[in-house]
């Protein structure tokens, strides 16, 4: 419906806009501005920070030590997104094509873990993956069973079961991030698939294409905006993840958020942390810009 010019009801406009504008300014823009200024600053003594307009912090951020962590975070986030996409797409399809009765419950089923506390979910996963966790116990049982089977047949039993190190390494971080972000991916996929005109699939089948081909040539291209949305919704938070790598990662599975945290807590190098924070923000903006660019090309190509 038509918007009206703010001048036509100045009083109403003032009433609705003062709150949000004030809050955004004072409690969002100002804090961000502080950080931005700090990134050009320098520690003086233990508590003081002097804004000197230096680019030292940014230069240090691009040293290989930190750049490699950035790149690794990007790689981990990318891997997590890919895995979520592969796992999540069939799930989204299943929900789309489920009967009316089941669909809301399936959606609820996917969403419920999302609403559960992130910390608890990560913690639960840790229990399961631990040295004596369920997974290892289960695998150990299988190993033992296989070993016993071998003795039955007269072969040497297998070596004693060494529990797999499933925690405190890169594998755990990736698994943890997938676990946490999977529901995030399913929703936009479902949304896009739901909007798809089913008769297009039927037309494709009618013309002789097999199911897989129809999937690749019809469903995926048409669901592309939703896929892109899901990728963005997963990639960006995964890139900035703190909790999962902190709890489930080892010393070499640090992600960028952990490095930033360290600057502010233990290392007490706020200017450097500020610079790293803003570099992360710029990286996010670049990704988002990339997405809106990519969204344009498919339209042009048609």
């Amino acid at each position, binding site marked *: 419906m038509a918007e009206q010019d703010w001048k036509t009801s100045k009083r109403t406009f003032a009433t609705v806009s003062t709150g949000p504008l004030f809050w955004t300014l004072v409690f969002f823009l100002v804090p961000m501005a502080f950080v931005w200024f700090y990134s050009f600053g320098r520690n003086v003594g233990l508590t003081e920070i002097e804004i000197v307009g230096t680019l030292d912090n940014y230069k240090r951020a691009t040293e290989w030590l930190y750049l490699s962590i950035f790149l690794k975070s990007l790689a981990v986030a990318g891997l997590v997104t890919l895995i979520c996409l592969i796992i999540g797409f069939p799930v989204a399809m299943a*929900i789309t094509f489920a009967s009316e009765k089941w669909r809301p419950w399936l959606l609820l089923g996917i969403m419920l873990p999302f609403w559960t506390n992130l910390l608890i979910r990560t913690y639960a996963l840790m229990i399961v993956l631990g040295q004596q966790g369920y997974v290892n116990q289960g695998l150990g049982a299988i190993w033992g069973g296989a070993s016993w089977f071998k003795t039955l047949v007269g072969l040497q039993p297998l070596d004693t079961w060494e529990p797999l190190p499933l925690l405190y390494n890169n594998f755990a971080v990736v698994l943890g991030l997938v676990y946490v972000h999977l529901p995030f991916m399913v929703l936009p996929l479902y949304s896009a698939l739901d909007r798809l005109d089913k008769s297009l699939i039927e037309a494709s089948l009618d013309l002789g294409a097999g199911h897989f081909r129809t999937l690749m040539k019809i469903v995926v291209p048409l669901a592309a905006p939703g896929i892109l949305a899901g990728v963005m919704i997963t990639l960006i938070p995964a890139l900035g993840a703190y909790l999962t790598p902190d709890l489930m990662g080892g010393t070499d599975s640090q992600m960028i958020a952990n490095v930033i945290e360290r600057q502010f807590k233990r290392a007490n190098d706020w200017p450097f942390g500020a610079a790293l924070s803003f570099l992360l923000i710029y990286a996010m903006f670049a990704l988002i810009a990339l997405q809106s660019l990519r969204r344009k090309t498919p339209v042009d190509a048609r």
Partner: protein
Amino acid sequence: MPLFTRTPHAPLEYSKTLWMRSWVTAVMLFLYMPLVVLMAFSFNDSKRNVVWRGFTTKYYAKAWENDQLWGAMMNSLTIAAFATIFSLIIGTLAAVMLWRFRFPLKGVVDGTISLPIIVPEICLGVAFLVFFSKVGWPTGFVWPFNLSAIIIAHITFCFPFVAMVVRARLATFNREQEEAAKDLGAGEWQAFRDVLIPHIKPALISGSLLAFTLSLDDFVITFFTSTPGTDTFPVLVYSLVKRGITPDINAASTILILLTVVLTAVALKLQGVKSIAGSH
């Protein structure tokens, strides 16, 4: 194809196929098993929590008596309550402002209000830490005012979500209803109260639930803005987990899971399953 021969079904009924069903089941198992394990082990009579030794509820009793746990829980709930109320108001105002008015730099304002959703939590947390320290936010208040810094931070990242939800609902509003109310004599505020608010009520409810959950669940931002004595539940659990997995945490976590389930059930009751599913 051999995959589709189990049950006869129409070509598009993908959900009836065996592999689809197994895939979804596997994913659901993957998602829920750790949670189920956690809940089950909260009844495990063992300090080390890994082998089942017997059923007990003593850790629930311990949790019940644990003042620290209670304190953190109270903090979390209080913060969430305040954050929800204020972000509901600010978010709704923002939504109405953007929906109804045309004003200079509107695009910029629109983008800026959505920024807290996009900016990584770590950066937001850092920004608040810097802000409150630079401004010299007093920390010695009595409860609940000592939670003010956290509450402010939570409101800041919650209200854009509320604004988004309310805006979506506003888009379906028939302006003629508002004009009809005015035509019949209602003033600006009366028309808003009698016609607009009833229309956006579903969005207000789902927005509140969203804000409440986001606040209750938050770790990173709270981690950066909390001071001694203002631990929230996630922050407390974090410090306990860092020390090692113990059944106390299991019991406390199970309580929180149940709380989430109850909240969701309430939301469902109010709105119906379909609309929750549809509010994606």
